[in-house]
């Protein structure tokens, strides 16, 4: 695992460089913003010195690197707290949403893909392909709005898109930050139902964005496996049909499917930004949007870096998962 981390170092270095450069280019002068109403020139200059804005760029970068090494992502101008703290407070909301939507996407896409592969060329297959191609063409924000219109306005089944819980609800004691888990741990079933209801639509909107690639990969992988030599051999040995499809074929097809699921997960983290806006979800996506508007350097930097790092970690996790499933990789032949 260490070797994989090392391989990704150059890219990570590039990421740090780029995220620093990007945010230094952000318009607006944070010193002016932070100084409040009717600031004096001295107050602004003072603030400038504190924020190191009067130093040349390379000095600022070195200071930045030093901070990073100490796990210091700086302080947010908007919230006044350390960026690291802000991010860790808001990250669980985003993760909960992303995990829920990836799982949902898998639950929908894998059966669709299997059906498409087993009945290749049939009407059902074409329907499945049309569904996955259409899902690919729909931007997450549009799907989200359609779902809100259908389930909230027309059918009244879903709660208003105003965050993770109903406005007057008391959240459960925070243990993991994952509302579903925390509510279950506290045995607060009413809140659990409420949280799940609020999670449904945004998770579904994101899941739809993910079923496009997942269905295709499942179908493709199943088709490839079903026409492979060992499946033909197993048919010849009269292996029971269900075992053939689900134990022999599916497990072998899962390898590319899980890799794609990992990529979908990463993609959905960035698609979160849009969804969090529509549903007023208090995750890191909406945090970043607010920070962008306020030219909150540290917060934006922290966000970009956090997400890129998450990306790297997810890729490593995918590699490891691959090794677990495909013994050939694990036993290193």
């Amino acid at each position, binding site marked *: 695992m260490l070797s994989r981390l090392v391989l*990704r170092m*150059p*890219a*990570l270095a*590039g*990421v740090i*460089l*780029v*995220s620093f450069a*990007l*945010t230094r*280019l*952000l*318009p607006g002068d944070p010193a002016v913003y932070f100084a409040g109403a009717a600031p004096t020139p001295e107050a602004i200059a003072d603030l400038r010195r504190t924020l190191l804005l009067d130093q040349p760029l390379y000095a600022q970068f070195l200071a930045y690197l030093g901070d990073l090494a100490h796990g210091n992502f700086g302080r947010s101008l908007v919230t006044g707290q350390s960026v690291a703290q802000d991010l860790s407070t808001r990250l669980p909301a985003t993760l909960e949403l992303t995990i829920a939507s990836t799982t949902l996407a898998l639950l929908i896409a894998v059966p669709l893909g299997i059906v498409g592969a087993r009945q290749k060329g049939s009407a059902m297959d074409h329907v499945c392909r049309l569904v996955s*191609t*259409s899902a*690919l*063409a*729909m*931007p*997450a*924000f*549009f799907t989200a*709005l*359609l779902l*809100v*219109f259908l389930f*909230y*306005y027309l059918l009244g089944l879903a709660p*208003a*898109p105003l965050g993770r819980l109903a406005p007057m609800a008391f959240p459960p004691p925070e243990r993991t930050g994952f509302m579903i888990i925390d509510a279950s741990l506290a045995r607060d079933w009413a809140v659990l139902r409420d949280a799940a209801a609020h999670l449904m639509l945004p998770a579904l909107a994101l899941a739809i964005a993910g079923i496009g690639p997942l269905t295709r990969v499942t179908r493709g992988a199943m088709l490839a496996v079903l026409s492979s030599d060992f499946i033909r051999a197993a048919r010849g040995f009269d292996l029971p049909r269900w075992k053939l499809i689900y134990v022999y074929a599916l497990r072998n097809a899962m390898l590319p499917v899980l890799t794609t699921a990992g990529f979908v997960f*990463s*993609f959905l*983290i*960035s*698609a979160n*930004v*849009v969804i969090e*806006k*529509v549903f007023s979800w208090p995750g890191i996506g909406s945090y*970043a*949007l607010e920070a*962008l*508007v306020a030219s909150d350097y540290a917060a*934006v930097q922290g*966000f*970009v870096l956090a*997400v*890129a790092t998450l*990306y*790297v970690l997810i890729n490593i996790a995918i590699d490891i998962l691959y090794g677990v499933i495909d013994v050939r990789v694990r036993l290193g032949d």
Partner: protein
Amino acid sequence: MAFAEALRDGFRRDPLTTATAGFLAAFCLLALVGPSLAVQDPLATDAARSLRPPMWQIPCGTDQVGRDICTRIIYAARLDLFIAISAVAIALVVGSALGSFAGYFGGWVDRIAMWVVDTIMAFPLFILAMGIVAALGSSMENIIYATAIVNVPFYARTVRAEINQRREAGFVEAARIAGNGPLRVLAYHLFPTAIPQLAVQMTLTMGWAMLNAASLSFIGLGIRPPTPEWGIMVAEGASFIITGEWWVALFPGLALVVVVLSLNLLGDGLRDMIDARERR
């Protein structure tokens, strides 16, 4: 050229792709010509007509300040198409150059080029586009640049793979011996072999570029109102979804989905055609 033959051949066999191509051609025509034919002014507000549902004279209804949505959709088509095509064109040129040099010269040229590509791909692409537009400012040019930058890796990798594969091939040797300098060999002999795969990539990423631009505008980082653009129009209509005025957000969104879907279908059809050809 063999490639054009393949296209003609393939189109004849695959009616869906041909139909999609035809639809897109018609759409481009509409986008170009439509504004001259449109009867109403996309920017004209009329408070008395605000939030009217779809009817005969206003097939898509009016928005909150009384502008005709249908007209705005047609005007927006031109803008969105322009953004997507420009972004893809820039990404194509830069990506191809990068990929060509990396694939042909190898060594440290390859390593640096791939480092750039890997860095771009290490970011969630939408976040990177967000960051670039935020840093450079909200304007059409910056959306184009941001989308282009984010798409460069796809083209660079495709071209690099194709050229790498054929670097030592016979016809390349022959071209070299005939006295062609490396740039000529690259440009006239090697690069054309990558064109089929590039064509597939182009249609696929064009759809994605459109979605990207619309998403950026949706979160307020792109084109500024009152310019009609599908993403902003959906954003403006978002608040009215909860109160039941569905047409403000639906029609622009639908237009976006239909065009992107066509581009994706076309890309898929092209890819099937090209793969079948190469397999033969």
